[in-house]
Structure formats: structure tokens, C-alpha cells
């Protein structure tokens, strides 16, 4: 109830003084946005991503993203989530990338499409075959297990993309995804550029939060 001289601000005879109610309206705006994002409070940032990495990721996504998220059924909430890799343990001939997703997203999330984007730089005119292994946590002992393997022909330096399959759904449900990149030749590995400010590998997922079963009044 905003302090007006009427029973409610939108009803007959109400007048409304904007400045005196400013604090109240700002609080209302905060609450409204947090409610709609299903957040109890605003997130506190521990490791914000560099602007360079963010800009690059959005540019790469803008080119291929669906025009509007709203061409879906209005009752379904849809998100696009970009997760940047933490470079994990790397051996001499492979690089391991770790992705962490918010726990809140895990429950009731349906992954529609997940793309893995990474930047490689090879010597000129070299083509390489890149093996990409997808590992997820085993439910019963939290060890990593190989769920699928993809072979990508990388014929030029630059950004490359891989569409992940249903294993991405398992990874989002667990909140954790591990990818291992194993180039076929030794020389190739040493020339991979990973983790540079604006070349950080990332995963972009379009997810839909399963709506509760709603009854429509007719």
C-alpha cells in the first residue's frame, strides 16, 4: 500500500507524489526483478569475467543466436547461459576445461542446445584433428566418467564450435561439466591459445526452466 490519499494508487480519485515515494519505488523495483529471476538476493560476484571475454562471447553468440527468446511458449521461462572455462589439470598432450553451473539452474532445467566454443591457433596451412572428450561426474562416487567423444577437423586458426549432445543435460543437472581437448599432434597442443583474456573458451546453453503445470481459466 503506497501512501496515497485513496484506497489504492490506481483507483478512483488517487493522486501520487513521485519524489516522496522514490525510496519505496526503488525497493519495489529491486523486489520485482529479484522475484522474476527467482533470486532471494542479488548475486555477489567472486570472479567477474573480463569485459574482453564477455564482449567476444556475446559477439560470437550474436551472429548465430535465435532472434528473440520470446518466440517460445510464454509460459516457459527461457535462459541463455554463458559459462567460461576454468582451465583445469592439463597434461602434455591434452587440456582439461572445467565448467561450473549455478545450483539453482540444476533443478527442473531442460537443456535445448549447448555449444562449446574455443579458440585455436595452429601454424599456417596446418589441419589438425581435435578429439574432444566430454566427462561428467558419476552419480554414485563423484568420479569423472567419459560420456562421449567428438572428433573435430580444425582446418584454420580462430574460433571453433562444437554442438554438445544430450550429455550436456546431465552436466547441467549436476552443475558441472569437464571437457578434454586432445589434439592429435604434439605440436598443435603447444600452439593452442586458451585462457587469454578475450579468448577464454566458453559454453553457451539455451535452457528452459520447466514451468509448473498451470491451469488456465477460460
Amino acid at each position, binding site marked *: 500500500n503506497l501512501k496515497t490519499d485513496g484506497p*489504492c*494508487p*490506481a*483507483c*478512483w*480519485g*488517487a*493522486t*501520487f507524489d*513521485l519524489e516522496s515515494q522514490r525510496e519505496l*519505488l*526503488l525497493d*519495489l*523495483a*529491486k523486489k*520485482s*526483478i529479484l522475484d*522474476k*529471476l527467482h533470486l532471494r538476493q*542479488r*548475486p*555477489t*560476484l*567472486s*570472479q*567477474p*569475467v573480463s569485459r574482453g571475454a*564477455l564482449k567476444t*562471447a*556475446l559477439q560470437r553468440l550474436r551472429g548465430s543466436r535465435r532472434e*528473440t*527468446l*520470446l518466440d517460445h511458449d*510464454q509460459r516457459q*521461462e*527461457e*535462459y*541463455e*547461459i*554463458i*559459462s*567460461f572455462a576454468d582451465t583445469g589439470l592439463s597434461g602434455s598432450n591434452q587440456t582439461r576445461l572445467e565448467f*561450473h*553451473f*549455478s545450483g*539453482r*539452474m540444476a533443478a527442473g532445467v531442460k537443456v535445448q542446445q549447448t555449444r562449446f566454443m574455443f579458440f585455436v591457433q595452429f601454424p599456417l596451412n596446418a589441419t589438425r584433428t581435435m578429439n574432444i572428450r566430454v566427462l561428467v561426474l558419476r552419480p554414485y562416487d563423484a568420479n569423472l566418467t567419459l560420456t562421449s567423444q567428438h572428433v573435430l577437423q580444425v582446418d584454420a586458426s580462430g574460433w571453433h564450435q562444437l554442438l554438445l549432445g544430450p550429455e550436456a543435460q546431465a552436466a547441467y543437472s549436476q552443475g558441472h561439466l569437464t571437457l578434454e581437448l586432445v589434439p592429435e599432434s604434439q605440436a598443435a597442443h603447444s600452439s593452442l591459445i586458451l585462457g587469454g583474456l578475450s579468448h577464454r573458451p566458453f559454453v553457451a546453453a539455451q535452457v528452459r526452466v520447466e514451468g509448473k503445470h498451470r491451469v488456465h481459466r477460460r
Partner: protein
Amino acid sequence: GIDCQGVSRMCCRQEFFVDFREIGWQDWIIQPEGYAMNFCTGQCPLHVAGMPGISSSFHTAVLNLLKANAAAGTAAGGGSCCVPTSRRPLSLLYYDRDSNIVKTDIPDMVVEACGCS
């Protein structure tokens, strides 16, 4: 719809822009820079009840007619409300607590127009 300006007390859309820097949210909300939390306020005398822009459902129209007739019978008049008649989504790009970037559209967050129900 009508935007509130000057001293008119008629049903209108009151613009109210929340700058995320003002509330200290500019760090976790990447885009946009603020949120237009417009709202509807003002009078709806009987003769404008049903102004263009009310919800177009038959059910509402019939209800309005009944109310208007009933209201006509009372000396006081009024009882119609100034409500949103057109809204659009708020598109947000923000960090979640794991520093993932989330992009989403929240439906019906920005009031575009108001009218008398």
C-alpha cells in the same frame, strides 16, 4: 494511452526509470543500464470507463457494462481503475553467483500504456 504530465489527474502512465547505478546493481547486471518501472495512476470517471485501450475480452466488456450501469444508479460514480493495457518484456544480461552470464527476457515487466478498466 496517455503519459502523465502537468497537472492532469486523468488515468495516465507515470514513467519511473530505475538507474541500476543508483541502487548499486550495475556490477551484476551487465545490460541494460536501468529498468523503466512505469505504472498507471489517475482518475477514471464513469464517462471514460472503457476508454480505448481497456482489455478487449468480452468478459471484461460485459462486466464493465454491468458496473457502469450499477454505478450510474449510485450518486457517487467511479469505481473504475487505471490499469496497464500494454506491456513489454525486460531483457536482462546478468552475472549469476558463479559468474556465469545469463541472458533472459522477463515478460510483462515494462508498462507501455494505461487505460480505464
